[in-house]
């Protein structure tokens, strides 16, 4: 019991991390697209739980809202609409294999770099970051206020550019949909 209380956060972290990894493996490995989509949902919810464990309530809840409640529902909708029960065997082109290997190596290298090479290691930097966010302009702020402060003050241009990209993508989808 003492063990459970003292290391509760760590135990929960490994639990949800296992869910995230298992879900990601399932998305790649399972043949039935419905199962793949549900595994992806498990991964999204696991990531949300990891955010909550790091006291990033706002980001965690938005993760559930956007990816869990929005994106995945649309995925499932399409899968049910076209009624795919099983994906046909798709031969992987021989030419894409080397490219995939290069991308995979780069990705792993980047993640390792983030964990090892960042000042103070990943965990410590994260903790310092949240502490700094908690107190902006000499005022104790809640989680959502801290997110808003960073988003609409420090990174306003990047935020607006991203929203413009999304708008372009949306208009593009409407135009493509109309042509048929």
């Amino acid at each position, binding site marked *: 019991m003492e063990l459970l209380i003292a290391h509760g956060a760590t135990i929960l972290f490994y639990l949800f991390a296992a869910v995230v990894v298992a879900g990601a493996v399932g998305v790649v490995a399972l043949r039935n697209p419905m199962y793949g989509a549900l595994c992806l949902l498990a991964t999204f919810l696991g990531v949300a739980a990891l955010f909550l464990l790091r006291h990033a309530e706002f980001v965690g809840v938005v993760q559930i809202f956007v990816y869990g409640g929005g994106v995945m529902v649309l995925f499932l909708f399409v899968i049910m609409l076209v009624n795919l029960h099983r994906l046909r065997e798709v031969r992987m082109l021989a030419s894409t294999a080397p490219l995939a290997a290069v991308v995979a190596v780069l990705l792993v290298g980047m993640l390792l770099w983030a964990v090892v090479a960042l000042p103070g290691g990943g965990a410590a930097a994260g903790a310092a970051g949240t502490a700094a966010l908690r107190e902006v302009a000499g005022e104790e702020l809640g989680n*959502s206020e801290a997110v808003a402060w960073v988003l609409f003050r420090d990174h306003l241009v990047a935020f607006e550019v991203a929203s413009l990209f999304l708008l372009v993508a949306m208009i593009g989808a409407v135009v493509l949909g109309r042509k048929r």
Partner: protein
Amino acid sequence: MSWSWLDWLREAVGQPQFTLLFAPAAKFLVAIFAIFLLIAYLVFAERRLLGFLQVRLGPNRVGPWGLLQPIADILKLLVKEDTIPNRAVRWAYLLAPCLVVAPALVIFSVVPFGPSPTAPGAPRWYVTDLNAALVFVVALASLGIYGIILGGWASNNKFSLLGGLRSAAQMVSYEVPQGLALVGPLMLAGSLSLVGIVEGQARLGLWFAVPQIVAFFVYFVAGVAETNRNPFDLPEAESELVAGFHTEYSGVRFALFFLGEYANMIVISAIAVTVFLGGWLRPFPSVEALAFLDLVPGVAWFFLKVFAFLFLFIWFRGTFPRFRFDQLMDLGWKWLIPLSLANVLVTGLVVVLVDRGP
């Protein structure tokens, strides 16, 4: 043996982790059981009221005035056979009803049933005051749809599948205006916490339903659509789809779907009361002449308003004919979404201008 158990318990209660971890859990369980009881009698009230609206009696045989009818219903549903179709996807079929009920119940962990304590040691009428509670509520409400989609898909029945698809389309469409409608009150209160929003209404001395009448309307219409209730009950339109996504379900699993629908009704009502009708506040909180109304405790006001909303749900069911599917989509996308967007724009402008003013 029993002595060591007691010792252990006494020691556990003394620890600070206990109040941190187990006290909220116990509180949450109490809230859930209260909600279960409320749901059982809500079903009974609906049947009696529908009987009244349709000029017939309704269930009045079991117990005095039929008051034991819900108990009899629950017993019947619990002992009935739980059938599973032959070619259903077993695990998904079994899991789906739970996925409908669980998110709806979790939402009650952030709903403030009454005021925060003014005196030390007084009870707090909510489990937790989450900083991002409003987003939490919307996020969890949007998860309930997986149970419906999964149940419809796993049943291996065309009516179930079509019902599930309809429901997915409907809920995705109406989530958008519902979320946008909540933005207006949140800007007025300057807080995402549900307790903060009610306190914002106390500061303003006015329920947000008055300045946010448009958002209130949009929220409630979208809320009725989200719960798949009349006149938006297309996912279970019996004349077209037999019973929609729960066609194949029976016994206790059907009861869980039923429970989920009614729990969602209470969630929509509770959030509408908290955000638009001042939660635990009395009517006209700024008028001194009505101060005697404060004799009624805040919890009673809260539940009185929730019951009013639940009555509205039942009244709708007894009154309106069902929408057609294209009408439903038109209403959501062409009317409610532009309306709620305009409301956000106007509210934002007013908030900025008032803040800059004298």
